[in-house]
């Protein structure tokens, strides 16, 4: 290759690499996983001064939602969470990050409380343990206690159908874990 073609060739190569990254479809916010749900240290909203070792209820499909009363996207997904709460036989548990019991109770009273139970993560330990970057984020846990889905961001109307389909499938006995 003659030296004068080198810059042009480099430019075309760079254009191809960057263009490919730019034009490829964005990653879905729904990420499938198969790791076991860890035990978390949480404070129940009904007794915020105490702390308990939280585990997903055995043989029950659970959706865990990290949220906060000060978080606007959490309000945007609230209607979708209510749809999920209406699915029979599953638990929807809320974990509030960086929040106060007073603000939480006011927020739940004003916007409605779709949660089976509400917890507070006062130290950030549970949030970090789950690899959460910010609120809202959600996890779907199957009946064996495996995390099957990590939703990074708010649950938008288009995605809630997919999540509800997964929840009912897991509830109705799909137990085979995804390939590891």
């Amino acid at each position, binding site marked *: 290759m003659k*030296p004068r073609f080198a810059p042009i060739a480099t430019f075309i190569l760079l254009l191809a690499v960057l263009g490919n990254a730019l034009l490829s479809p964005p990653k879905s916010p729904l990420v499938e996983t198969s790791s076991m749900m860890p035990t978390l240290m949480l404070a129940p909203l009904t007794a915020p001064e105490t702390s308990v070792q939280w585990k997903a209820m055995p043989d029950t499909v659970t959706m865990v939602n990290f949220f906060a009363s000060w978080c606007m996207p959490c309000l945007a997904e609230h209607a979708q969470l209510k749809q999920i709460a209406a699915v029979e036989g599953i638990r929807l548990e809320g974990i509030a990050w*960086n929040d106060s019991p007073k603000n939480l109770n006011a927020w739940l009273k004003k916007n409605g409380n779709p949660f089976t139970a509400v917890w507070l993560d006062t*130290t*950030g*330990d549970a*949030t*970090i343990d789950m*690899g959460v*970057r*910010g609120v809202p984020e959600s996890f779907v846990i199957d009946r064996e206690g495996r995390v099957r889905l990590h939703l990074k961001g708010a649950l938008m109307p288009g995605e809630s159908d997919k999540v509800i389909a997964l929840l009912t499938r897991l509830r109705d006995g799909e137990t085979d874990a995804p390939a590891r």
Partner: protein
Amino acid sequence: MHRRASIIAALLLAASSAQALVVEPALPDRQQEQAAQQLFHDMKCVVCEGQSLAESDAAFAQQMRGHIRRMIAKGNTPQQVRDYFAQRYGDQILLTPPLAPRTALLWAAPLLLVLGGGVMLWRTLRRGGASS
């Protein structure tokens, strides 16, 4: 008198709870605290672009520092802490990315650039010498 004492007590209490947001207790063991501090400098704050955990005042960064201190206090090695965070937040959280096939080009890039520049310089100088 009793009332004034209770007001002072209330003020002190309020001041101490406000302070609790800012002051982060260091680990009693100096070596452990040093290990934690080194990790703060080698890890990114996930909510603030371009800052390390050591530099950030974000609430989440504070919680991450607390989490790291607790892990170190429980006897985790710095490498175990790094692995723990990389597993949850991806290698991007580490300011020193690990050397792996995936990152080989990243690590080799400075060397390749210097070598390429050297070759170009050598050829230019040689050509210049020949023409004069």
